[in-house]
């Protein structure tokens, strides 16, 4: 199936762990957690006060003054990620056919910080003080639209809104577009709503950690796990049909990252139904889609929800699929917090870098994973040949998605497979 699998030829990363791919990857391998007190607004009076914020992002350094009045913080980061992804892929969109490049992003809340400010204007000063740009700056699809306009990408465009799972669902949708004949899609998610409105929306789920020690607040699979820390950022990837990438020479220099070889999504039954969660089915279906067996997977990037109940569901899914301690599992998002839809997209970028360099990045702050989980949790960088990674993501409200990536060398070959 490799000919039908999109290749990843570029990535743009803005994460709490770093501005740009290399800084993010270096800090991730160092286990340098970026979780700290919230600085983008005064969180002192909220029960949760820690976040993973993207450091040293100065939008004026990257974007024209025309874009600043009309963009939310997360849109500004997404636009910069799109610049970096295209540059990394060596793509000049103007040189491609007008309708040749699509854009698919995911979002969880839209431009909430922008919307928060304009709602404050509305109730504090009156409707005439609300920015005309509020008409679209808050919107879920705004990143896709702004990226499309910025680079003149007029191929199929879309947005997926499935909370965290959206980061994988956007890549899955891009893969469908490529299989329908599209040559290139810029896809992924950069997300985050670091404002009181976004904060209380997440607090309402009762899944955010209330701890104030950054080293103890977000510890998935730990006996003391009691919630997650939110964050901002994410990654955008340039996905191409392999023949199109080959034709433009993008696969000649060995700088491309790998392939997306499997993807699946499922939805959970109602919480009161007594039926089981469907994360396992998503993971299994993604492996089937990739034509792989569990033993072919080199590493799992866990969803790592950070609540005991959700951790138990994921651990059980991994045990069912791989057996106890059956596969290395990691959650580098312990360094960034959960970035809404941006998190799983960042995990895919990180997984591709792990495959490239043959090293599994660590899970931090989890000294002793709960033995009941029977997970081989990677807590310091682990070197070795890696061919394939499974990335899992769950979105609040019942979304489960799983995605399989393989490095440029491809998954282990097995002639007996269909």
């Amino acid at each position, binding site marked *: 199936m490799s000919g039908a699998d999109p290749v990843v030829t570029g990535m743009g990363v803005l994460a709490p762990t770093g501005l740009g791919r290399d800084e993010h990857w270096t800090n991730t391998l160092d286990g340098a957690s970026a979780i700290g007190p919230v600085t983008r607004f005064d969180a002192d009076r909220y029960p949760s006060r820690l976040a993973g914020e993207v450091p040293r992002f100065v939008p004026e350094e990257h974007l024209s*003054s025309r874009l600043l009045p009309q963009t939310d913080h997360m849109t500004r980061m997404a636009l910069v990620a799109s610049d970096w992804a295209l540059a990394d892929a060596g793509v000049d969109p103007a040189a491609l056919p007008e309708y040749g490049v699509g854009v698919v992003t995911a979002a969880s809340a839209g431009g909430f910080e922008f919307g928060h400010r304009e709602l404050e204007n509305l109730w504090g000063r009156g409707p005439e003080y609300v920015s*005309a*740009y509020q008409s679209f700056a808050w919107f879920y699809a705004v990143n896709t639209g702004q990226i499309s306009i910025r680079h003149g990408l007029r191929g199929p465009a879309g947005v997926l809104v499935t909370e965290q799972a959206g980061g994988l669902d956007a890549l899955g949708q891009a893969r469908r577009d490529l299989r329908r004949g599209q040559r290139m899609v810029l896809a992924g998610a950069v997300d985050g709503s670091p404002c009181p409105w976004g904060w209380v929306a997440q607090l309402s789920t009762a899944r955010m950690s209330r701890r104030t020690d950054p080293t103890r607040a977000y510890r998935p699979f730990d006996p003391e796990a009691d919630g997650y820390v939110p964050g901002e950022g994410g990654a955008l990837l340039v996905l191409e049909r392999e023949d199109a990438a080959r034709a433009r020479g993008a696969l000649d220099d060995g700088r491309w990252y790998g392939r997306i070889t499997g993807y699946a999504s499922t939805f959970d039954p109602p919480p009161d139904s007594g039926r089981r969660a469907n994360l396992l089915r998503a993971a299994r279906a993604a492996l089937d889609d990739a034509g792989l067996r569990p033993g072919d997977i080199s590493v799992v990037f866990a969803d790592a929800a950070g609540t005991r109940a959700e951790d138990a569901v994921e651990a059980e899914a991994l045990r069912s699929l791989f057996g106890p301690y059956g596969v290395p599992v990691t959650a580098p998002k312990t360094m960034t917090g959960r970035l809404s839809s941006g998190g799983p997209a960042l995990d895919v970028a990180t997984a591709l870098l792990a495959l490239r360099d043959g090293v599994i990045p660590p899970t931090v702050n989890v000294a002793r994973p709960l033995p009941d989980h029977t997970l081989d949790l990677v807590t310091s960088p682990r070197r070795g040949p890696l061919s394939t990674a499974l990335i899992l993501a769950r979105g609040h409200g019942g979304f489960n998605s799983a995605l399989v990536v393989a490095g440029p060398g491809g998954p282990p070959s097995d002639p007996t497979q269909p």
Partner: protein
Amino acid sequence: MTQLTTDRLLAILHECAGEGDPLEPTDQPEELDFAVLGYDSLALLETLSRLKREFGIDTEEDEFAAVRTPAELTTLVNRLLARSPSA
């Protein structure tokens, strides 16, 4: 009574919608279409909202529909100011 000048209008446009597109040295921006300057309908909407607040003019947006250039907009705003009861 405060009057709007084209320089002030161009500054407001800049504050509301960012810098316009690059111009030729010989261009007089106040005489160019907003579209040529690079300001779209939302940029104008945002600017009109600001003018209403700053100059206290109260009018229907229809009156602005025919306005094409900063000079025309400046003229319209000043005409509205002249006829407003508070002026």
